[in-house]
């Protein structure tokens, strides 16, 4: 039976094993909410028990034992602060297990605590998130408890007409007290067999409502569990890594395509033309003896010569685009070379105590190259400052010009740059108000 053929499903809903499991989960939810609510009172209550057991409470007047509580209350608070996270973790584990067993909902465990030191225990993020779940459990237990109540007492009320003939078969005229039944609208009492059918009807109504209440309660609970008891940060990180990995793959594929295109339309066609010209020149020179057409041959060789030089220039540009050889000497040299090729004067300051990872140097170089090219194309600037500084484990590349501004971080150039930077966990900040100036800061890790 599918879920959407209405009345039959609604009638069957209370009598499925799922409903029973939900009822158990809801009852346990109410129990744990009660336990969580009573946790802060545990210390003082134990104190009272101790005083009562030793007889102090009956012998001493209240003011004499009051100082004990002045001590017990802060002690409880301190204990709660220290123990909250580990208790939260344990309670979270229990609830994840309950959800897995009873609701078939599997919530992954958060990463384990890094160490057993007090600092790590108190500042344990997943532990405190589990505490948050515990506090949320109290309001969540209200629909759960209500649903479980309707379920259990609905079943009980439905059975009243069965019990009546069994236990109320007294001789006629015997006067008895009414029997009572609990409903959400208060207790109903009856003295007649007919009245038990009213109770049974109320029971049926409760039973029909119960699955939906319990479902609402458990659905909210499961949502809270996924948020607070699961490995949230890690999952986010995984998503982020998946995204950047996909971008890295796309970028690599795009780069290969561009490379193929550059070679195909550049050096390859030049070399093919060069071969063609040399082939024609060979014919003009003839196999042996005096050349049949020396002038044409000379012209063709000159053409081929020029073609060869152009092919070389093409290849040189391409090679520099793949990996500038000067980058092997370090970012400082590479950026200085880059600056000398810029149409706008560039002041370069590189302050690096040691060399970052080669991949980071490459990313930093291409960012600087792209930003300088952008500035040359769009900014109408008269000077550019290009700086690289190291702070801790991060490296910041700054390109600032005195141009007209208005650079769009969402444009194809800058967003492409941001994608490449994100792959190595870097960040880019663009400030470019209309009218200028433009400043772009790129922060990169020193090692991948």
């Amino acid at each position, binding site marked *: 039976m599918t879920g959407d053929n209405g009345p039959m499903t609604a009638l069957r809903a209370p009598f499925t094993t799922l409903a029973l499991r939900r009822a158990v989960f809801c009852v346990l939810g109410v129990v744990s909410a009660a336990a969580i609510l009573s946790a802060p009172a545990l210390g003082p209550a134990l104190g009272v028990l101790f005083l009562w057991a030793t007889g102090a409470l009956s012998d001493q007047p209240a003011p004499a034992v009051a100082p004990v509580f002045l001590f017990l209350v802060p002690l409880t608070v301190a204990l709660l602060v220290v123990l909250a996270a580990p208790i939260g973790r344990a309670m979270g584990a229990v609830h994840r297990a309950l959800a897995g067993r009873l609701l078939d909902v599997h919530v992954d465990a958060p990463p384990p605590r890094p160490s057993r030191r007090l600092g790590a225990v108190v500042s344990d993020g997943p532990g405190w998130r589990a505490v948050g779940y515990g506090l949320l459990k109290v309001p969540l237990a209200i629909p759960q408890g209500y649903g479980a109540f309707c379920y259990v007492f609905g079943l009980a009320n439905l059975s009243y007409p069965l019990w009546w003939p069994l236990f109320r078969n007294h001789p006629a005229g015997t006067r008895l007290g009414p029997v009572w039944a609990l409903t959400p609208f208060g207790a109903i009492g009856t003295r007649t067999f007919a009245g038990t059918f009213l109770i049974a009807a109320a029971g049926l109504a409760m039973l029909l409502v119960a699955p939906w209440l319990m479902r609402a309660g458990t659905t909210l609970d499961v949502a809270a569990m996924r948020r607070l008891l699961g490995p949230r940060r890690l999952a986010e990180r995984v998503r982020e890594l998946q995204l950047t990995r996909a971008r890295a793959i796309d970028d690599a594929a795009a780069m290969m395509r561009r490379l193929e*295109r550059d070679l*195909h339309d550049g050096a390859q066609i030049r070399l093919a033309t060069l071969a*063609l010209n*040399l082939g*024609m020149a060979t014919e003009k020179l003839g196999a042996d003896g005096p050349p049949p057409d020396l002038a044409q041959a000379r012209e063709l060789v000159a053409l081929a010569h020029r*073609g060869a030089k152009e092919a070389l220039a093409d290849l040189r540009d391409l090679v520099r685009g793949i990996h500038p050889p000067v980058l092997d000497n370090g970012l400082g040299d590479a950026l200085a070379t880059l600056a000398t090729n810029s149409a706008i004067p560039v002041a370069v300051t590189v302050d690096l105590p040691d060399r970052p990872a080669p991949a980071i140097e490459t990313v930093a170089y291409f960012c600087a190259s792209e930003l300088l090219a952008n500035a040359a194309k769009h900014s109408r600037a008269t000077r550019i400052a290009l700086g690289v500084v190291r702070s801790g484990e991060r490296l910041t590349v700054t390109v600032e010009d005195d141009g007209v501004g208005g650079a769009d971080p969402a444009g194809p150039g800058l967003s492409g740059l941001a994608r490449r930077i994100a792959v190595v966990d870097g960040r880019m900040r663009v400030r470019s108000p209309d009218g200028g100036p433009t400043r772009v800061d790129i922060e990169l890790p020193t090692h991948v």
Partner: protein
Amino acid sequence: MRVVIAEDAAMMREGLVRLLTDRGFEVCAAVADADALRSAVAATVPDVAVIDIRMPPTHTDEGLRAAIDIRRDQPDVGVLVFSQYVETRYATRLLADRPTGVGYLLKDRVADVADFVDALTRVASGGTALDPEVVGHLMRAGRDTAGLASLTPREREVLSLMAEGRSNAGIAAALVITAGVVEKHVASIFAKLGLPSSDGDNRRVLAVLRHVGGG
């Protein structure tokens, strides 16, 4: 002989025009994209069109598609498709109907002017010119299935040259042997592969290509 050239790289196009004019061809049109090629061929009805496979706007296989259209619409126009790399699949598509008046060469081949002009003339007069590179692919692919293993190395050379579209005389010149020896090799190859012997060069190419899986 009248030629239309379609090639998007200007220097290559100019080189081809120069080469073919020099060799006595009449270049009716030299264009840079597939649409211009279609209208030029329709307008001038050349003997043969030299077509670069990769042209604007998508730089994928415009030239090939234009070549297939031309072969369908104007069967008398030979098409010589050329590109910087060869794809066996392209060759298969090009040869799909009939292996007549069609060629598929690497661009590198223009360097050997005499061979290139020979191939172009063959295609213009209804023959076939397949790049040795394409034939090599097909032969390697058919090595196990087509029984090529039973051929002697010399017979395999002859088979490759046949597949390229060369005549017996052309094969004899390429291998520096006499025409009679070539004929003996050809007969032996057809017997070993179980192919019906055929007289015309074109039907022979078709049989060989079908056999190795290219047609």
